[in-house]
């Protein structure tokens, strides 16, 4: 695989980081959603990421990365808003348990990791171009 392997490894990371960003954005957008398609409050999603063998080079296994599962955090916060159409009989409304600051931090982390992985691909590209130059 050599230098092309770098592209597949870093490429898998680009996909994972994009998905993490999507999930964080979805959580942010729905931090006040009291009603989803199932009629219940939105639940926070979390991507579970794991290392996965991408290929084996002469030195050993090189790991890529993948999203294992997307976990749903099954907790809500209750606010007393009896005027709200989604309020229960006791006047409490279930809101998703989402902390926007944490989601922002997740979003930024995914963003930075995406950038660095893109830089790794650039670097592999430059090295490939350099090795082509040898033959000129």
């Amino acid at each position, binding site marked *: 695989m050599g230098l092309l392997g*770098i592209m597949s*490894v870093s490429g898998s990371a680009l996909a994972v980081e994009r998905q993490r960003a999507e999930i964080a954005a979805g959580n942010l957008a729905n931090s006040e959603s009291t009603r989803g398609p199932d009629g219940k409050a939105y639940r926070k999603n979390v991507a579970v990421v794991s*290392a996965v063998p*991408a290929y084996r080079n002469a030195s050993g296994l090189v790991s890529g990365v993948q999203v294992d599962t997307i976990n749903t955090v099954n907790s809500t916060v209750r606010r007393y808003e009896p005027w709200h159409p989604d309020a229960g009989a006791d006047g409490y409304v279930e809101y998703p348990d989402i902390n926007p600051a944490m989601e922002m931090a997740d979003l930024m982390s995914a963003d930075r990791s995406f950038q660095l992985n893109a830089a790794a691909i650039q670097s592999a590209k430059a090295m490939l171009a350099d090795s082509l*130059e*040898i033959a000129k």
Partner: protein
Amino acid sequence: MIGGAPAIEELENLTNGTAMPDFIDSLARFLEVASSRQQFIASNIANANTPGFKTQDVDFRKSLQAALSGETNAPNPSEVAGLSERPDGNNVSLEREALAMADTEARFKVAAQMLRIQFRQLSTAIQGER
């Protein structure tokens, strides 16, 4: 090991009194070690957010020596000691990896350039100046 000595130093050691074909061979091994190290760095960066993932790296100088002495052509990756570990068991330091990536790329570039010059000289020797 992050940077260590500049790329040039190891290349200078390669040139010491070697005939051109040997030097070309050495440069090829140098490129192989650099490319192999870059693969592990890319994997570290890809797994910067993977719980429990440990930084893997190859020691550039040792691997090069092993490759040149003909022991083995494949650098041995090992877990890097002395990095601070996050609560989730991951110890990838993005600064370290970014630096290592730039370092390895520079080494590769220099060696590729030198290889190119060697081939050009060889071709001049064959064809004469035209």
